[in-house]
């Protein structure tokens, strides 16, 4: 099954972040399966008509976060553990979440508001 990613260059979200989110969404919905070979950074940049470095940045982040892996031939795959629970990922995600909550509290956002935002996000995904 082929998976189509969609990016919008008029949005404030950087293109690399949109690519990253699209790949994660593909893994979440099962359209990208563990072991699936993805286009190389250069090929995907060609397909989207955007700069190679933008795609490379997204791929690097996805590799760092364990969603993708690169082999010696520089091929990029969906990681076998991409859709499963990963303790490293969980730790990083908890840290990130704590930072975000601290930031929100510093700006005066109440616990209830934060909870509602999280509930909304969980409900929409």
């Amino acid at each position, binding site marked *: 099954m082929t*998976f189509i990613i969609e990016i919008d260059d008029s949005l404030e979200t950087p293109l690399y972040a949109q690519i990253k989110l*699209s790949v994660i969404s593909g893994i979440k919905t099962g359209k*990208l399966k563990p072991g699936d070979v993805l286009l190389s950074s250069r090929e995907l*940049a060609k397909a989207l008509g955007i*700069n190679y470095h933008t795609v490379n940045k997204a791929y690097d982040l996805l590799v760092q976060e364990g969603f993708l892996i690169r082999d010696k031939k520089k091929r990029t795959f969906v990681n076998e553990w991409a859709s499963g629970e990963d303790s490293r990922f969980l730790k990083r995600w908890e840290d990130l979440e704590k930072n975000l909550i601290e930031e929100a509290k510093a700006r005066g956002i109440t616990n209830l508001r934060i909870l509602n935002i999280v509930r909304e996000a969980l409900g929409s995904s």
Partner: protein
Amino acid sequence: MIQYLIRVADSSIIILLLAYINFIMPSLTPRSVQFGVRIPPDRIVDPSLISIRKRFRIYVTATSGAMLASNLMVSIVSGSTGFSALFILLEIIAMWAVYLDARKHLRHVKITERWTHGYTQKIPAVINPERPAAVRMLLYFVMPLAVIIATAALAVREYPYLHQFLPVKFSGSDPVEFAHKTVQLVLTPVYSQLIFLGIYAVLVFVLCRVKVVPEYPDLDRSLTVQRHYRFSVIFALSVLLTMVELDFMLSGMAQWEIIPGIFTEFSVIPSVVGLVLVVAIVSRMRYSIAIPLNTESAGAKRIMNRDDDAFWKAGMIYYNRDDPSLIVPKRFGIGYTVNYGNPFIKIAIFIIMASTTLFAIRLMAW
């Protein structure tokens, strides 16, 4: 006389083919790109677009009719086909002019009526494309390879019985130039066939790697259509190559005196037949692309492909510095073009221009 009639027929067929290709071109190009202008899904059956398309077809028919009549008239009056190339060139230029006129009108309507207003513009791309199976790709080489093997087998079988001097040039059925028999000379048609096979292999390789652009509103269906279109082009080129290989086989058979020399005059017929077949095969695709679209549902999501008109200078030249692609599908027309914004293409153009200039200067110095 036969020679003259064949040449008149050949040039007339080429003029008619050009006219036919241009006539059906609006149906061959993607629905979301009409006359090189990106349009939203709900405007595909817009009355302004239909009227521009109709006018384009009237102009194409009128221009081609004029060129065909002029070609026939000048050929009959002068008794020569020397002007045919000029009429073919004039037709190509006229077709460009007609296309640019249609593009100008469509762009004007698109901007003044704010067609893209309220649309979210996105760039879609397949991240895990299916690669074509190697066995399937090899099948496209079977026909031309069979002709090459047959030609080589004939050359090997005939070699011991050939005269010491072989005809290399004919005038009608009479040989006018001879050369000493060598293995290299006898195998010349086979070498030529192999060169064309090599060119075809490179083309197939490039075609399999050219980017595919999914189109809104139905991304998956647009991919299927483009995949079929690509394989149709590869198959059509395989048919054309087979015909060109047959040309070489006929020329070889005339040289080896298996058939009379007069057949060299007819040796271009397979290529012309191949060209007609290519147009027939590729134009079949228009039916799948031209399936009526429910414009209400097409426009309901208010999503369209990014408006990339600005990257197409004069609707023909693709210039996008950010796009690393070297080759991209043509905006209007069958085939592919290059990205002039890519540094490699700039260097390649510079090298070609510099070497052509140097060659011209060298020629003038002689």
